[in-house]
């Protein structure tokens, strides 16, 4: 049965092969906004906010025919988020700047004219959470309170005492942190054939993480998923004849 499925799959691919099969390699870079999909439970005056990041990658594309290709984009990408407090806790915040090494693999569908084309990418990715940096301000239990005039109001706790600010490398906890991320992606964009071998492109892409950032280490655990929206540009160079 497995052999028959494999043969069928290869047959589908073979059916699309033409003499136009060729490799391209390129460079891409972009800006992204990452949202952490989770919830704050019953925590008051607290919310998660998305954060900006950037990505840089080396796309490799194998054109099977003039409308279908397989593409891989090994890349470095940031997927960051922030926890922000409000009201009396205004000023208390925590940022996670997360770096991933990621390998998206996708089917690349092209349509349009000879020079200016549109394209659609569909696929998945595997990523490794390589490092993180945390930055923020927290309440300092042992802070020395400011000397305020009698009767002075303190709209926020930080009006009455200094917080503790930090900017440091994050230490992973192997009990909690899941370093491997898997997900799906969809992208769409336009490409322009600049010269016979050079192709410029601009793309909007969405990465949807399907694996929780955390391992299952406790009952009633609130999961955390990355949703990353990317705008990127790049250039491909066709190899071979």
């Amino acid at each position: 049965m497995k052999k028959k499925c494999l043969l069928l799959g290869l047959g589908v691919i073979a059916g699309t092969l033409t003499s136009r099969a060729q490799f391209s390699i390129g460079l891409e870079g972009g800006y992204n906004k990452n949202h952490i999909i989770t919830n704050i439970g019953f925590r008051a005056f607290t919310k998660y906010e998305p954060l900006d990041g950037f990505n840089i990658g080396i796309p490799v594309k194998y054109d099977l025919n003039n409308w279908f290709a397989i593409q891989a984009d090994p890349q470095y990408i940031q997927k960051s988020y922030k926890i922000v407090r409000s009201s009396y806790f205004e000023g208390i915040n925590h940022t996670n700047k997360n770096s991933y090494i990621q390998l998206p693999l996708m089917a690349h569908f092209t349509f349009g004219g000879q020079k200016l084309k549109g394209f659609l990418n569909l696929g998945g990715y595997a990523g490794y959470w390589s490092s993180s940096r945390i930055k923020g301000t927290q309440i300092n239990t042992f802070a020395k309170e400011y000397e305020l005039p009698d009767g002075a109001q303190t709209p926020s706790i930080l009006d009455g005492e200094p917080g503790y600010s930090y900017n440091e490398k994050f230490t992973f906890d192997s009990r909690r942190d899941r370093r491997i991320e898997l997900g799906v992606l969809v992208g769409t964009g336009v490409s322009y054939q600049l010269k016979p071998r050079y192709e410029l492109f601009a793309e909007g892409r969405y990465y949807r993480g399907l694996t929780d950032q955390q391992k299952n280490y406790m009952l009633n655990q609130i999961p955390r998923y990355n949703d990353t929206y990317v705008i990127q540009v790049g250039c491909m160079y066709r190899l071979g004849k």
Partner: protein
Amino acid sequence: MLQLILGICLVSALASCRKESPQINDPKRYIEGSFSEAFEAYWNGMNNNYIFWDTDPTNWDEIYRKYQPIFAKMNINDSTDVRKSYTYFKEMTSTLIDSHYALRINSPYVQDSAAYISPSDARHQKSPDYHGNINPNFFYSTIPPKYLDKGYVRGFINLSATDQFFAVAGKIKGNILYLHFNEFSLNVIKDLPTPNNAQKALQYYFDEVKKPEGLKGIIIDVRSNGGGYLSDLDLLVGGLTDKEFPIGATRSKIGNGRLDYTPWIPATVHPGKDAKLFTGPIIVLADLNSVSMAEMTTMALKAMPGGNVKFVGERTWGGNGPLLNNNDYYNSGQFSTGFLSLVYTSSTALRYVDGKLYEGIGFPPDIEVKYNKAALDAGTDPQLEKAISLIPQ
């Protein structure tokens, strides 16, 4: 085209593969019409608010698996089941390291005297060295005439119907300054508008500390002191130094996960205004019943640069995580449910300057002198006598 359709179908199907996020509700918002709900409120409250999951040996998930079915079979309106629940709550919390931890059951079926559950109390009572507080009268009426020079100052004041503060201050051998007080309300007493003897006792101590040239040593006695306000640390310990110094670090929670901690935040003592560095011997007296601020003060004094502090007495209680009565500040700490009117637990964890956590362990003395009931009954104080012997004349 086939590949495009297959691709869209596959990606769409996979895109929905995410775990459902549970709804985590505020423990005090549960409507506890059953013991099932009462258990869920408490278990989830602990799951998200307890600060020591990183180091606590209690397997909280196993507690859920074992006790949720038990509570599900009980009736919250049945007096027998309510009394049974008291035993189950004791079992569930028996290995928690938080030594401030206490539960108060809110039910007419549980007598007031039995309504508190304190795992650390139960643990300490099993120890052969366990003893209760030294009688306050010993500090107030026995120590001063026997050990303090004439001219000592003592006083007490009722801060509420159930809260009495007292302090004793004086000199020993003309040049050792001694201070004992029963709780950390020093700033409160200092700021009381009506003069009183307790305030005078504290003022005597703080005035003498500002004239260190006349002193050969200081004894700060926090035995049988149940703690109090953290702000007293800078007043008392900060009064002995002219520079800020670290005593360790604290951390609280940044999210709902048991292991979602803030970074460690330095805990420091700040010098008092016009405070002078005291370089002579400082002896801190503490015992098994020195807890919370009394423990933190002992630890802070021992962390003073200069190495001129010695701790005489017994290993302290083991409850030194600072706490607030509101878990909104630190995303951790105290909460309540309908059935449990109080779940009293630390808001932050304290790591000492040596990198260790002494929560549930207690801070060890440099020189151990155990509680001696016979000696105290005879009107003598071996712990104080040892402290005095360590200050050269």
